[in-house]
């Protein structure tokens, strides 16, 4: 077994064929002792194409992490309704054995805290070769493969470092090791849950660059979860914005950054400081995101929205085609449809007089 046998050739055809991962009207409910059920994620539909990079952004608590974990079925007390399809294979509600065959081998996950993801008592080499056993690669071949993987990820003297323990690496290095561990069983899809949040800025850049390189080389589809929009800009093909358990906006990355369709996305972007603007007070979105169980009727964002309409507090907006080519769940875009159908009543003006 040589290094070349381990590294699959880079795919040139991006998004070819059927989607790698499909989520169709997925809802996640937490059943607590005492009967109370909490709806964490509501009616989420997403697709991840082959070789595509989808960024899932949102504030802490919007449900993005829960959603990613639900794909792998990591939290048994969370009820999953809807469909989660890996290619053609349904994952929602699958048994533990079936999920185990998928984890690592077809879908892998990288977590936020790199030190946390590594067993402090096992050598790095042992942890890397562990998932390889499921591919039938063991012993010397596995160690060689692990060493090659570490080198790929920029760790020098990889063969010797296999015997090192996690605490002997720095934070950025640990994240590389965690990434190597995720890639060890050659998955098709990588779920990256805030992989850079716990790192300093320089390490962040390095890890994202690394992620970019290795996923491109291996033709992986990537679901990148982050709350850092600037990080996402340079990496993702598409951005899905989550708010209070729902997907509110799903557009190609250029459209999201050039002219964001959803008011929430717009608010998020204007809150990011920019190099080409004079420093001053950053505009922040007023209010806070409601936690699960206390979400308002209608559009969950309406209390904070500068452009809300009358019906926003009654009717939950469905996903409509967005100007950028994706979808947006906002009543503002209902008008396009209505205008096309020739609505009888003109839409009422926004209560705070904001521009349409």
């Amino acid at each position: 077994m040589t290094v070349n046998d381990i590294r699959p050739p880079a795919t040139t055809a991006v998004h070819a064929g059927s989607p790698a991962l499909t989520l169709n009207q997925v809802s996640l409910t937490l059943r607590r002792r005492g009967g109370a059920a909490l709806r964490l994620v509501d009616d989420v539909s997403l697709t991840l194409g082959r070789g595509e990079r989808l960024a899932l952004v949102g504030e802490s608590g919007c449900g993005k992490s829960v959603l990613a974990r639900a794909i792998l079925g990591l939290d048994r007390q969370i009820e999953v309704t809807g469909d989660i399809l890996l290619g053609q294979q349904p994952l929602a509600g699958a048994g533990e054995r079936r999920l185990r065959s998928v984890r690592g081998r077809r879908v892998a996950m990288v977590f936020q805290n790199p030190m946390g993801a590594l067993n402090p008592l096992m050598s790095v080499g042992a942890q890397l070769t562990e998932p390889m056993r499921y591919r039938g690669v063991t012993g010397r071949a596995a160690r060689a493969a692990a060493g090659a993987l570490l080198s790929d990820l920029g760790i020098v003297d990889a063969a010797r470092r296999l015997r090192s323990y996690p605490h002997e690496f720095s934070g950025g290095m640990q994240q590389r090791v965690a990434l190597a561990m995720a890639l060890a069983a050659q998955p098709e899809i990588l779920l990256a849950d805030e992989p850079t949040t716990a790192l300093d800025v320089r390490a962040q850049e390095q890890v994202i660059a690394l992620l970019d390189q290795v996923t491109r080389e291996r033709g992986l589809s990537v679901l990148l979860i982050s709350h850092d929009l600037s990080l996402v800009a340079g990496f993702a093909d598409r951005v899905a914005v989550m708010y209070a358990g729902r997907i509110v906006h799903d557009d190609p990355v250029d459209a999201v950054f050039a002219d964001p369709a959803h008011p929430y996305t717009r608010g998020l972007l204007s809150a990011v400081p920019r190099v080409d603007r004079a420093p001053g007070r950053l505009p922040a979105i007023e209010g806070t995101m409601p936690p699960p169980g206390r979400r308002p009727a209608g559009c969950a964002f309406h209390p904070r929205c500068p452009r809300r309409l009358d019906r926003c507090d009654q009717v939950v907006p469905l996903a409509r085609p967005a100007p950028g080519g994706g979808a947006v769940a906002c009543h503002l875009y209902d008008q396009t449809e209505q205008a096309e159908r020739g609505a009888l009543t003109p839409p009422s003006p926004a209560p705070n007089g904001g521009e349409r």
Partner: protein
Amino acid sequence: MKGIAGYVSRRLASAALTLLLLSLVTFAMVKVIPGDEAHVAAGVTATPQQVAAMRSYLGLDRPWPAQYLTFLWHALHGDLGTSVSSHTSIAAGIGQVLPETIQLAGVGLVIMVAIAVPAAIASALRRRRASDAVVRAGVVVAAGLPTFWLALIAQLLLATDLRLFPISGEFSPHTSVPTVTGMSLVDALLADSPSLFWNGLCHLILPATVLALPFTAQLYRALRTEIIKVLDSEYIDAARAKGLGPARLMLRHVLPNAGGPAITVLGATVAMMIGSAVLVESVFGLNGIGAYLTQAVANSDRFAVIGGVLVIGAIIVAISFCVDLVQLIRDPRLRVLAAVS
């Protein structure tokens, strides 16, 4: 590696210092306790001249530091003095009975681990409401039962009434085995007799279980708490996300990490078990160091008791040193701390 070698040698030096202090403490006890050693040694009916002669013979008229050094010198050479009651070597006497106690504690440890570890794993994994509270209550009760009372009750119910186990002794009456190591089970194996081994084992199970019970409860609690804490960790999450099965997860990831405090508890347990063994031995008629020492107490043979204290103390210091080494092997992070400190 150099750092670790330094740490180990420093631990050895500490252990040596501890043993030295132990000998000092025991010697001080002998001296401080009222009573004329010479008189006791010479016998109740001795004349004053005989007592004086005994005093100079035993070197009791020399200054204390000199006496201590002689005491230490002899102890290091394995001579713990002569028993005033039986007039035999104390070291030899202890050497005859100690293996039986060690065997009892050993079997007790095996039983303890065999019960506590699976129970802790099962309990940590299930965490169901009703059974959890019941088991917790049971554990507290088990830890609080007086060993000697439990021994009596067990003997009464299980051995005498229900006849499930033998009542006392190491073997059935009129059965014995040539003494090689002093441990009934090992000697039975050496004598190539499975039936004797089984006989000896049956006689040991009840006392060993009674001995181990309170400590089993402690180990179970410590281990269960640690396992629950570890199960909550992120690296277990990451390991599951790698697709690892429950067996591998538990054996290679959970237990090694949860084992730290448990190993420390095990080490401390051995010390306390040897103490408790005294009680169990007296109830079940086993001929271990407990019996030897109670006999010594009855004869006011303070040297024998001191000798016993010294020997057992030395064993315990050795065990705690070994526990430290085991922890070092288990957890590589400790090696870093050790090398630096």
